[in-house]
């Protein structure tokens, strides 16, 4: 330990000088270099497209509940030529755009764009990201991608329609001609560029800008999740870029990377795309879940008022999952005629990657055990995430093994599995984060009553809708079918599908509780204090909302992010929490472990 006066504060402050505040509308809200503003830009964009993606989901559920019947309200606007009825060609555009929008343009900007930008600098004790200009650019590149997505809806032959997985040859001009599909391929490439930029920024920021005393093992698990996600973004989104580039060349310039000649001649290979896509695609599901894992790991600790159980184990688990994420991708291709040795190898690795996820899960359970649980809205959503992820993760077992997959591949069981793990879990964590950081972001508090209402609609909605998918798939209903009941053996599932759809409509309308809460609190909510949740991470030691420069004085960190219910703290300060940079009355020294080596 060194004495605090030995620390060269001037040098420390000079590393992240306080710039003058932006004063024009343009520099404050449009081209802002402030990570907190960029975070909000991503949040708005993500929430708007979450609504679009959700509406598309409602169209799918309508078609399965009332096949061939005109869609109420929206039908007259969207499907004018067919009297409000969704046709087979439009149906495939609906499910394609639903998947692409939810993954790339809803969950990604909210969980990674918004929380990454907002939380990382604040939680590591920095004034901004390492590259603020690049940060602003990454949002506007993302916005360009959004324009391409909107453009796709107006494509000459409709929007993209080859499924979110975009497999060729269906996704080439042979299968899906028209500008709609091409624009989406371009949109994916462009949003990939944005993600890579963001990833470079997040990784560099965490490595270089941690406050003194903020060792890697004192970072909130939220930051760990976002950091590892950013690493995966940097490494694997480019592979998606290569897959998309070649598809773009095939569509626009007539190359034949993915088009096969006659069975025995050379030429391209459609399976090539699947390799490239899934080498990205499997890490992508971890990209979408790691921030959720991180956020929930922190929240369950804070609202159990005790330290996160075996923090090191959680970090190791997240790192292990990150490291293994790319070597399991083949489990998406078991039915493609893959070499059996390769297939079985992928199966073994897929089962192995479940171990770190189990460790993480057990840590959550052990964190809440013997805690002092406060069921605030963020905690409800965090516990809800634990629940849905547990369920979803367990269903992955069936699909990771080759033999059950002979039956379950392409059924609604797969759809149920990834909706529980990727949609429900990420969305629950997103809402948890929004409710938790809303006071800090916007300086106001949300209504607990509306929050809890929203929670129950969402949790029960997810359980029934995605549970319905699992049951339908188990019973043999396949995915991406305009009319599943064209198959006689699926006809007994009509009622199940209808009930599932009703639950989906309830889920959708239940989100109004969130919309109301969000806007009402934004405009009229009670002003928030600096630390309404009484937790110790650095963002809660500054005002709500923080000034542009975050910290008047860069903090010196002395302890981990979940030092709650420490008897020593209780004895000296009369409370169950202490800030990461707070000095206990008899502590004068600064920990020797400062991260910022000269």
């Amino acid at each position, binding site marked *: 330990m060194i004495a605090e006066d*030995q620390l060269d504060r001037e040098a420390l402050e000079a590393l992240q000088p306080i710039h003058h505040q932006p004063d024009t509308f343009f520099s404050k809200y449009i081209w802002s270099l402030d990570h907190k503003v960029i975070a909000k830009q991503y949040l708005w964009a993500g929430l708007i497209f979450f609504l679009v993606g959700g509406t598309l989901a409602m169209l799918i559920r309508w078609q399965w509940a009332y096949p061939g019947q005109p869609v109420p309200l929206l039908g007259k606007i969207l499907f004018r030529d067919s009297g409000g009825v969704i046709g087979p060609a439009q149906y495939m555009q609906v499910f394609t755009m639903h998947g692409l929008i939810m993954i790339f343009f809803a969950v990604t900007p909210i969980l990674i764009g918004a929380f990454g930008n907002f939380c990382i600098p604040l939680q590591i004790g920095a004034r901004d990201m390492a590259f603020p200009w690049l940060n602003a650019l990454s949002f506007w590149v993302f916005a360009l991608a959004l324009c391409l997505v909107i453009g796709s809806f107006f494509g000459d032959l409709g929007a993209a329609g080859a499924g979110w997985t975009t497999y060729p040859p269906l996704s080439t001009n042979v299968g899906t001609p028209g500008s709609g599909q091409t624009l989406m391929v371009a949109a994916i490439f462009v949003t990939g560029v944005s993600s890579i930029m963001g990833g470079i920024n997040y990784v560099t920021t965490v490595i270089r800008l941690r406050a003194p005393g903020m060792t890697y093992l004192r970072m909130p698990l939220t930051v760990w999740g976002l950091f590892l996600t950013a690493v995966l973004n940097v490494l694997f989104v480019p592979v998606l870029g*290569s897959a998309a580039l070649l598809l773009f060349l095939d569509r626009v310039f007539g190359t034949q990377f993915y088009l096969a000649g006659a069975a025995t001649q050379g030429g391209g290979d459609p399976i090539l795309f699947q390799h490239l896509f899934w080498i990205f695609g499997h890490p992508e599901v971890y990209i979408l879940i790691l921030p959720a894992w991180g956020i929930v790991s922190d929240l369950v600790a804070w609202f159990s008022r005790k330290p996160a159980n075996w923090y090191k184990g959680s970090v190791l688990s997240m790192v292990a999952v990150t490291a293994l994420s790319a070597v399991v991708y083949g489990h998406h291709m078991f039915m493609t005629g893959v070499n059996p040795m390769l297939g079985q190898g992928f199966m073994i690795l897929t089962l192995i990657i479940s171990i770190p996820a189990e460790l993480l899960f057990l840590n959550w359970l052990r964190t809440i055990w013997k805690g002092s649980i406060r069921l605030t809205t963020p905690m409800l959503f965090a516990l809800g995430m634990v629940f849905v992820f547990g369920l979803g993760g367990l269903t992955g077992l069936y699909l990771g093994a080759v033999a059950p997959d002979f039956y379950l591949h392409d059924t609604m069981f797969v759809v149920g599995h990834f909706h529980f793990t990727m949609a429900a879990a990420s969305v629950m964590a997103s809402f948890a984060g929004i409710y938790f950081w809303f006071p800090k972001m916007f300086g106001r508090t949300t209504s607990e009553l509306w929050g809890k209402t929203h929670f129950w609609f969402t949790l029960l909605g997810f359980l029934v809708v995605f549970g319905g998918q699992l049951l339908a798939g188990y019973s043999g209903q396949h995915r991406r079918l305009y009319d599943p009941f064209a198959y006689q053996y699926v006809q007994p599932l009509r009622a199940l599908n209808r009930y599932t759809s009703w639950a989906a409509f309830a889920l959708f309308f239940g989100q109004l509780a969130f919309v109301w809460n969000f806007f009402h609190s934004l405009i009229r909510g009670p002003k928030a204090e600096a630390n309404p949740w009484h937790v110790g991470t650095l963002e809660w030691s500054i005002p709500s909302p923080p000034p542009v420069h975050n910290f008047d004085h860069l903090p010196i960190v002395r302890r981990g992010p979940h030092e709650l219910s420490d008897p020593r703290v209780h004895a000296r300060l009369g409370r169950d929490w202490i800030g990461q940079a707070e000095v206990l009355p008899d502590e004068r020294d600064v920990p020797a472990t400062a991260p910022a080596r000269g």
Partner: protein
Amino acid sequence: MSSGVLHHRPLHARDEATARVGMLLFLGSWAMMFAGLFFALGVVRWRSPSWAPEDVGQLPTRWAALNTVLLIGSSLALQLALRAVRNARLARMLSSLRAAFLLGVAFLASQAFLFARMAALGVRWETGTFGGAVFGLCGFHALHAAVGLVGIGGVTRAAGRGTIQPARHLRLQLWTQYWHFVGVVWLILFAAVFAGASGA
């Protein structure tokens, strides 16, 4: 771990360390992108019964080899410029930069000529996967080379105005890293697309 005292290195040196981390990640991401493209190239070449379709004729492989020499030369020149500025030999730095730039321009011009020769032989975008590899992948690489050349041009101009110094030459260093990357990618492309390709 150090004592936490942070004043050993000057401010801009720490900024440079940050920029270097960023550059490393950036190059890492581009390396993964090209890794994906090379994987694709490997697969389609392995699946072709004849690489370069059989009726194409004599491929301008020697031109491609010349381009390789030009690009390697440009990288070398740029590295020499970097070495020169570190040894405070600013005049040599400037002349090396100019050489690197000119060689880079020559590379691009020669690439354009290569594409024209291919087209004259009847190779198009859609000429099997070979055409896609030539125009698509080599074209994509050429775009990267063009960006690099703009960067080098900017550094050369800055050098001419005296703003590249022994103590402050991060910009030169980063563009040099980028340019070497462009060169290595070309070497692999050359081997994967042109080496061993016959068309007769």
